[in-house]
């Protein structure tokens, strides 16, 4: 047990040594198309513990994040986003999750930005 505690402490120290940033900016692409997608994507991202700020751009499809790297990582966020039906470069939402998004958000059929035509 003592050993584990020591290792854990060492890990914490390495974390500091590696300079894990508690306000790390990251940006990656997430597929979607409208204002409703935006809310869904941002909400899923913010629900991941460690994500402080999320802004998905309708025209560029880029999700800009500020995250606490000690608590989460990009893949965990992408998983959360796939869970609500949105694909990223690596992860694909299940058909079931995709079927659950609102009909206006069906980006796999048409990935163009039409945020202006509806909400």
């Amino acid at each position, binding site marked *: 047990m003592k050993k584990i505690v020591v290792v854990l402490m060492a890990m914490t120290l390495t974390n500091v040594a590696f300079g894990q940033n508690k306000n790390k900016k990251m940006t990656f692409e997430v597929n979607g198309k409208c204002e409703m997608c935006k809310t869904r994507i941002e909400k899923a991202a913010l629900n991941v*513990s460690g994500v*402080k*700020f999320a802004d998905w751009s309708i025209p560029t499809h*880029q999700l*800009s994040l500020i995250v606490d790297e000690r608590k989460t990582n990009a893949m965990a966020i992408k998983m959360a986003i796939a869970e609500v039906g949105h694909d990223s470069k690596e*992860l694909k939402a*299940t058909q079931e999750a995709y079927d659950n998004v609102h009909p206006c958000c069906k980006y796999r059929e048409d990935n163009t930005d039409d945020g202006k035509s509806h909400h």
Partner: protein
Amino acid sequence: MQKIYRLVALLIATNFTLYAQEVTGLVVENIPNGKELPLAGANVYWLNSPIGATTDQNGRFTIPQDPKYDRLVISYIGFITDTLTIGAPKDIKHILLANNQLEEVVVEKKRDAVKKTFFSAQNVVTINSAELLKAACCNLSESFETNPAIDVNFNDALTGTKQIQMLGLTSPYLMITQENIPMVRGASQVYGLTFTPGTWVESIQITKGAGSVVNGFESISGQINTEIVKPLTDYPVFLNGYANLNGRLELNAHINQKISDRWSTGINVHANNRSVKVDNNGDGFLDAPLADQINVQNRWQYQNPETGWVSFLSFRYLNDDKQVGQVNYEPSIHRVNQGAALDGSEIWGSEINTNRFDSSAKLGYVFPELPFQSIGFQASYSNHKQDAYFGLNQYDIDHQSLYTNLIFNSIIGNTKNKFKAGLNAAYDGYDELVNDQAFQRVDRSLGAFFEYGYEDLERLSVTAGVRFDTHNRLGNFFTPRIHARYTPWERASLRASFGLGRRAANIFAENQRLFASSRVIQLNGNGGDIYGFDAEKAMNFGVSYLQGFTLFNRPGNVSVDFYRTDFENQVVVDWENPSAVRFTNLTGESFANSLQVEFNYEILPSLELRTAYKYYDVKTSYQTGLLQQPLQAQNRYFLNLGYETKIKENGSQWRFDYTLHTVGEQRLPGSENTVPTTQFGRVADGYSLMNAQITKVFSKKFEVYLGGENLTGVRQGNPVLGASDPFGPDFDTTVVFRPILGTMVYTGFRFKG
């Protein structure tokens, strides 16, 4: 060792999953000396699945295994992506080979400070510049004609000043701010709204209910914030001229210039004048004041996107002169001093002269790396000097005010949980002369506030704030306020709010219209700290429901609001007795219930209908009993129709606007007395007012408008009681329940360079 690693990996894994089955592993790269180096932050995911993981500091990963997926992708920037076939849970070790080319280049787009608009917890109505153009005249007090949230009443029979009210309470119970700095208060309470020219206004935000704790404790039934045009975004040159058939002339000019990448400056000039004497009702009194105003503002705007600093500096000087009273009155000849022997040949007149200087400085810092975090500092100073007399009554007020606010915005955990924390300090020095009695008062307060905002981005948002203030006259007190919004289903919003507010009533400044009467002023105080009265204190709560809909492919919405304000103490202005006005602390009840039902719909393409019914139950315990506030109509109806043609390529367009206000019966003061005290009787009948305006836009640069107010010419026949003997006992100009001026036609132009 391996065991411990496993344990540690398990312990620090951020995602504990319910999957019993998982694939674990180590991702490394080969380095020149033949050793292996763990790769931290590599992506590990099942191909075409929603499942992924990232390697930790030691290159370890744990990924749930799902029989549906068997291709495990391992990728890392600068390395060749590998895909492994894995059919069953196991522990693997994988070596990634460096890729000489960068596989992925991330270009970070430079973005502006991100601004999000969520559905707010507060019941906020925004009037934008397009809406403001619907009623072209002339200043902030007249900017609410096309909006049902605010009711416009007449202040008195002389100055033509409009008094605004919200939720059944007049403007002293609203907090009126300009760019979040308290503005219309103290000495400027009555005429302050007329000192902000309409063209200076960029937008107005109206918050019903208690409002935020950030700007202070004074708001009771709502807040109105005005954003003024900004040098950076306003037109380089803007010119507006206005004239009406009653002789009112207005001129507005804005000149804005960008001085450098970071600095912009602008000068806004307003002048208005009325030198034509109008007495259409033949009572010998001017129907509208002779007026002269010059109003100059200079603003400086600084913006540095790289460092995150923003700043505003504003300076404003105002001189406003009004003359009212009998048509033949000539101040230099006819002014009668108090105590002079009257022989019955005197002419009654009044002058209200105001000089005001305002300045404000704002400094804001947005942390460049943290768009959700900022610090703001505001400081403002104003000096308001009004010299006035109303016949024999003299009323002068000097008000110096200093206000500072420091505010820190940030988040708790993530942007779903935001907070604002800060400090306010305020100083108000009043120096008043009421006839031959001087009143001097200094108010000082220091406060700290904290406001927490939660939003789940979809259904729920809550803003809860509390502030603690220490005030030399109001004492030490907490002010809590809470607002919540819930979306039960699509396009619906359910809101509720609760809050407390307090204020020191400036009884003379707020009620100075009463000087233009023969009423005797009685101050029946209890030795309180403010003119012998206690501070006013009230609680406000409300609920509202908004539902959007689409009918025949066109959008609409319907809303219902109910608000109640309950006074614990109020300085009651009792003018039920026609020969006196009596100020007392509240004994008994005082409350305002307001109900508003609003319906908005695009009835035909480009034809917008806005309609509202409002019910006000505003009662106060007067000497004669618990009565509806005098001149407060219980029922009001509002309708606005707007039509716009399609904008052509050159920018040309026609715009049409029509507004109807129906005001129900109003109780007149003294209605409970055995003999009705005014010659009008006990109640004033209801009436309807109609306004309309046509705007022809010739191009993006030039437009003209033509409008009419009070098209049917509704008028109060004899608004001045005892007009034939203005120095006699029956003289009264305060009982005004209808417009004084009849139909008024106006025209003007706008040039945007």
